């Protein structure tokens, strides 16, 4: 088991290194324009541009840039480890910026994830158990609505109704839980629900289908033949076996949201990582984009590792393979 984890960790490093290379290639070798132009003021002279190039390191050949970039990433720079460099715009540390924004995104994801997992799996189990009844139809109707409703529309409607009209919740923006716990919750409740809704719908459908498939297995019949109560049959024998794909999805979904909760963050003006990344991309502030992408890919790689380890705990066949 330890060997397995060690092996997987090595792989994670390899994957991150590859992502690093690809990210570098995409953003540094194929830029949409010369980033230096943005900082040189109007009608820059060649000398000014050259100076900026030099300051940003853009005057070196690409492999030198990549070498420095990788070295900084793995060893650290003046802002510590991992070295992500500084922004073009403010010449401030990318790392500091990410550290400042990350908690917002992570708290958004955490709250939404708990919500969608609980709601989604419950609805899925309910509709599998009450298959072909009105409960099942309602649940699957909800899933369909949840999957097909655009997040930005749902976000705006939620804001309009619950903030502007009813005044039940806080509005847009982010309030730190340290400054005001109630303000934090009041501002986060709508983003949580809106983000969770889509995923809850997916998870409900997935749970229902997996569980129905599992309940048709021979070992479920064995469990019933033992005389176990139906509840044990469904929750212990059925749900356990249908949990594996859900765990996989859950890990990956969370990881993907690290840099990908863009719409929710934008609608609710929570200036998290996704929001940061999209704005920086628009302003061609490439080091920030690279930083967020790297963080996202590390998150995905780690999530994969955690999922695989969980897998081994859930399914002994994996453990002893």
């Amino acid at each position, binding site marked *: 088991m330890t060997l397995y984890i060690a092996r997987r960790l090595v792989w994670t490093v390899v994957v991150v290194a590859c992502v690093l290379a690809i990210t570098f290639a995409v953003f540094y070798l194929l830029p949409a324009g010369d980033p230096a132009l943005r900082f040189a003021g109007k009608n820059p002279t060649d000398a000014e541009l050259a100076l900026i190039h030099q300051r940003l390191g853009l005057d070196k050949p690409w492999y030198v840039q990549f070498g420095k970039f990788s070295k900084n990433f793995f060893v650290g720079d003046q802002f510590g480890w991992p070295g992500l460099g500084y922004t073009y715009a403010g010449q401030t540390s990318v790392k500091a910026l990410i550290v400042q924004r990350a908690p917002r995104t992570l708290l958004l994801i955490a709250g939404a994830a708990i919500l969608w997992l609980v709601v989604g799996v419950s609805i899925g189990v309910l509709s599998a158990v009450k298959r072909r009844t009105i409960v099942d139809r309602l649940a699957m109707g909800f899933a369909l609505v949840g999957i097909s409703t655009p997040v930005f529309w749902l976000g705006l409607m939620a804001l309009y109704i619950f903030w502007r009209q009813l005044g039940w919740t806080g509005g847009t923006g982010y309030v730190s839980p340290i400054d005001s716990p109630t303000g934090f919750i009041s501002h986060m409740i709508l983003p949580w629900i809106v983000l969770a809704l889509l995923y809850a719908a997916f998870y409900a459908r997935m749970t229902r289908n997996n569980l129905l498939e599992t309940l048709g297995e021979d070992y479920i019949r064995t469990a019933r033949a033992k*005389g176990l109560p139906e509840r044990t049959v469904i929750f212990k024998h059925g749900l356990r076996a249908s949990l594996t794909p859900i765990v996989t999805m859950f890990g990956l979904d969370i990881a993907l949201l690290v840099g990908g909760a863009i719409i929710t963050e934008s609608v609710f003006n929570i200036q998290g990582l996704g929001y940061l990344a999209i704005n920086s991309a628009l302003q061609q502030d490439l080091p920030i984009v690279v930083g967020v992408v790297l963080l996202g890919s590390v998150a995905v790689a780690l999530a994969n590792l955690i999922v695989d380890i969980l897998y081994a705990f859930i399914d002994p066949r994996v453990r002893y393979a």
Partner: protein
Amino acid sequence: MSTSHDGTLLDVRGLTVRFPTSDGVVQAVSDVSFSLSRGETLGVVGESGSGKSVSNLAIMGLLNRQRTAISGQVEFMGRDLLTLPPDDLRHIRGKDIAMVFQDPFACLHPMYRVGAQIAEAVTAHQDVSKDAAWARAVELLDHVGIPNAKSRARDYPHQFSGGMRQRAMIAMALVHNPSILICDEPTTALDVTVQAQIIELIEEVKREFDIGVILVTHDLGVVAETANAVMVMYAGRIMEYGPARQIFEQPQHPYTWGLLDSMPSIERRLTALVPIEGSPPSLLAPPPGCPFHPRCRYRFEPCPVDRPPLVSPLPEAHPDACHLAWDEKVREGAKRSVTRLGDAA
């Protein structure tokens, strides 16, 4: 564990199972009646779709009640299992009536230890500690011939071979000393040498625990070696039902003859096998009259019209469902007469 004085454990009368589907009603089991006594092995023989497995699932209450129409009576210890509330039936299932299924690869939960799955069967009907349940599981695994039962109990099913899994299934069935053991094709998925081990184990278990065994199989050889009584089923109905000795020495139904004729013999190479022509009928629309008549070489006028009832043609004969004259049944049956191994010894 009280039973009626004549030793009858199970009395099934007029069991009928229907599955409504979008294409029509599947007439899976029609008017099946039989009984099982202590120490008896009832062999239920038939091909796929004959209703042999479905009738046992119906008895065990393992068919989805919402999607199945079941009628008839299944009397066990003075109670009708078909009208019992689900929760009461659950207390009989796995305790008084236990079941072993065909595919030991699919019948154990892949994510729980073998010992835990057996221990779970213990605690399902008995208020004992986890340790006691586990000890009972180990004891039973040892009893059914799993070597190093104590450590093997901690294994997961995929670490067991097919034969060991089937032994574990039998151990699980024996947890509460049931009075009836239903084995649904218990050896079909196993290799022949392992199959022999499992058949012997079931026989041992029957003798030791003095229980009644229902053995569902398509293999006449298995039945011939183990059963006291045989029920031959076709298209959801009983074709012939009687003591095993009679069924093999003097089979009365053309379908049984067909089965015996088409069985490849290991004793000698036959110049030509005699198959039953055609295929089993659709249970959505079984043929009128005798369900076997379209494939029967002995059919005559009444067969496509009147369904022959399951009756004994003579007091000393066993019941069959066939219009043929008794003389012909005797003549044709005698050609297929088989002296069973157990009878020869």
